[in-house]
């Protein structure tokens, strides 16, 4: 009994344990449900998975199933980010405990019963528990906003290295707070139309209503919801990485106000799509996205400069190559910001290119081609966020030496191969015709499948290692029980 109690305490009562559980659950869902589509479906693996697991797949309900699947995975990611925030930022311990408890129960209910309802028959009790889970996550978010309240004098800071006002108001905390508040509000942006569309039975995928000149308010709301939620998850992970790396100095002082401003404007633009301001909403969104992305760029500049300086501190006059070597010497710390940069090729760059050449190129292609770009670019962004979390997690569990190098570089290289493949696949019509595309498509599929499959194998290896570790009396988990992320922030 003591054996179970101590492990349970680690897994559900420590930040690192909670993150481990969430990563494990998401990995299992990704691996299993990834076999239901794409090349796995082509090879016939889908039928085997459906039969083996006893799934009840009805053609007409595909859109509803996918919406629940996306939510199940996203809720796990939001839980991980919340654990990181409660672990990194100062807050009352009862807030931390309650938030973590609510969100843990919430995402598990949403994931387990959501997928149960969507893929294993429609037992309405499962749907009720799924909605209960989402509601608990929402309340955890509200509580997180209260816990992060930046005007609480207790959380004012004196260190002038960080972005703050003269009175000591912590602008980084304010950025976390802004992101949390806007996330909670934007969640309603999906919840309300979700209810309107009858518990998912009359829903749709946003990529299927592109090009329609008339959209309903509810359709706009859902399109806005999915865009802003992913953007806010990305903003939050950027802030988390900044806190982990101990982002400070002049760049920090510029970045944090930009992050707050960008986040607010971005959200106003998205919320504006359901108001009479809809015609200008896109412009507002661009205006908001720019300062947010600039803030991320400043984190990148500051961190790369820091790695280069610290890594060559022992050399009197380091050369460019020595600085470069130092900069990339720790893939787990270099990786997250590299992935943010890489995102510009796979997501932002594609988005901007599409916006600029929409009429000349993309709207000449059939809608199904445009849908590939749309779904591809946000899958790529989601994958990038996942890899950033995995890299931070690698540092969290104390990977060192060659294992750290192997783990870090594998994540970077494998994911970037896959994402480069996805990006070229999205854009293939620019350089190959429909009739002649198959050899290129095959090559790209190999790249994507190789990258993603190997990445999942890597995560599986780590998960198996962590699982076996739990059976050891004095495993690594015993150290992690008391570790807190705030104490492990870079110097």
């Amino acid at each position, binding site marked *: 009994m003591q054996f179970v109690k101590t492990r349970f305490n680690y897994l559900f009562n420590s930040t690192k344990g909670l993150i481990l559980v969430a990563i494990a659950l998401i990995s299992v869902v990704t691996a299993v449900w990834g076999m239901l589509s794409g090349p796995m479906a082509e090879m016939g693996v889908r039928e085997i998975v459906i039969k083996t697991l006893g799934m009840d797949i009805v053609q007409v309900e595909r859109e509803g199933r996918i919406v629940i699947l996306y939510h199940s995975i996203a809720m796990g990611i939001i839980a991980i980010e919340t654990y990181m925030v409660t672990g990194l930022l100062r807050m009352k311990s009862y807030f931390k405990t309650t938030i973590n408890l609510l969100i843990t129960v919430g995402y598990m209910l949403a994931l387990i019963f959501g997928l149960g309802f969507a893929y294993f028959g429609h037992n309405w009790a499962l749907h009720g528990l799924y909605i209960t889970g989402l509601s608990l996550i929402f309340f955890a978010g509200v509580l997180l906003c209260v816990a992060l309240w930046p005007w609480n004098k207790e959380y004012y800071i004196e260190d002038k290295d960080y972005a703050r006002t003269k009175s000591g108001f912590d602008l980084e905390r304010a950025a976390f707070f802004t992101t949390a508040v806007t996330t909670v509000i934007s969640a309603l942006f999906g919840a309300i139309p979700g209810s309107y569309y009858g518990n998912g039975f009359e829903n749709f995928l946003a990529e299927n209503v592109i090009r329609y000149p008339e959209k309903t308010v509810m359709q706009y709301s859902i399109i806005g919801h999915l865009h802003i939620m992913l953007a806010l998850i990305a903003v939050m992970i950027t802030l988390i990485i900044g806190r982990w790396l101990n982002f400070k100095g002049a760049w920090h002082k510029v970045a944090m106000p930009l992050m707050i401003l960008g986040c607010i404007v971005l959200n106003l633009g998205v919320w504006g799509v359901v108001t009479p301001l809809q015609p200008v909403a896109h412009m507002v969104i661009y205006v908001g996205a720019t300062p947010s992305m600039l803030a991320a760029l400043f984190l990148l500049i500051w961190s790369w400069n820091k790695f280069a300086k610290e890594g060559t501190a022992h050399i009197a006059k380091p050369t460019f190559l020595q600085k470069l070597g130092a900069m990339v010497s720790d893939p787990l710390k270099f990786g997250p910001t590299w992935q943010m940069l890489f995102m510009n090729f796979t997501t932002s760059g594609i988005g901007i290119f599409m916006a600029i050449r929409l009429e000349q190129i993309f709207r000449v292609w059939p809608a199904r081609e445009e849908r590939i770009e749309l779904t591809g670019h946000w899958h790529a962004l989601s994958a990038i966020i996942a890899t950033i979390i995995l890299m931070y997690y690698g540092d969290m569990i104390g990977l060192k030496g060659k294992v750290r190098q192997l783990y870090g570089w594998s994540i970077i290289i494998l994911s970037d191969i896959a994402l480069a493949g996805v990006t070229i696949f999205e854009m293939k019509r620019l350089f190959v015709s*429909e009739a002649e595309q198959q050899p290129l498509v095959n090559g790209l599929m190999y790249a994507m499948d190789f990258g993603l499959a190997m990445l999942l194998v890597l995560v599986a290896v780590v998960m198996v290692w962590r699982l076996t570790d739990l059976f050891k009396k004095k495993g690594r988990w015993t150290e992690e029980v008391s570790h807190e992320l705030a104490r492990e922030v870079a110097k």
Partner: protein
Amino acid sequence: MKRLILTFILSAALLASCAPADLNAPMPAYETGVDANAWANVPAGEFYFGQHAKVETTAAYEIMITDVTAQQYADFLDAALADGYVRLDGKRIVGFYPGDVFRGVKHEEKIDAGDWLFIPLDDPSQRIKFDGSAFSVQAGYENHPMTSVTWFGAWGYCDYYGYRLPSEMEWEKAARGTDQRPFPWGDDVLRENANFYSSRDPFEDMSSFGSRTSPVGFYNGMNYDGYQTLDSASPYGLYDMAGNVWQWTGDVYEGMHYRFMRGGSKDVYDMDLRLWVRNNATPTYFSPGVGFRCVR
């Protein structure tokens, strides 16, 4: 040594990706026994429209039981060229279209009255050939659906014979009948039901040229040299209403120049073969995966 092997494998994969697809690879020829000149009666009345099964009504009409074949289109071009309905414009066949009302809605483009592209003759995937005096079909493709035809080319064919393209509602009713089935033949899809991406039909080779069209009416329950198909006709006896080629429909919607296609094709996964799935493109778009049929 390991690095060398890895580099070799990666280079080989890369080179294989750059190899050109053979668009004229041998095509197995099969007679399906389905008459491409036949029409089906669809009675007036209510039916379930769209994914969420909204009840709609149509008047009675007749619809072709197969897509227009490449041979039928070649015959049309011969006749239409002779009487001036279409003309040769360089390497293109063009014809007159009376134009759409332009409302200046965002992203809307003007479709003025004038000559528009029916089919390109120089596209590598075009199966219609012109020798300067007559049109012919590349051998093996005679009973395949006409592809690489623009919406104007589809509209022109139907108009020439006094027919028209089906509206989306007419198309869906003809495919679905009066119940709520997601596929013309029923509730689920198997590889032997239709020609879709990686459906392992006798015409595709995913390792080289990929998916290709199948003869119209191919999925009629016949056995072709050991390849057993399932009879996949719609309740009104139409073939290929799911898969093979997307089919242009005739609706011109207010404020948009896009034209809609239905039915999915050889190039999409089975989920896009569901009867309510829509695709759209500019009316000048053509592709080896897009064809049409007419109503009257």
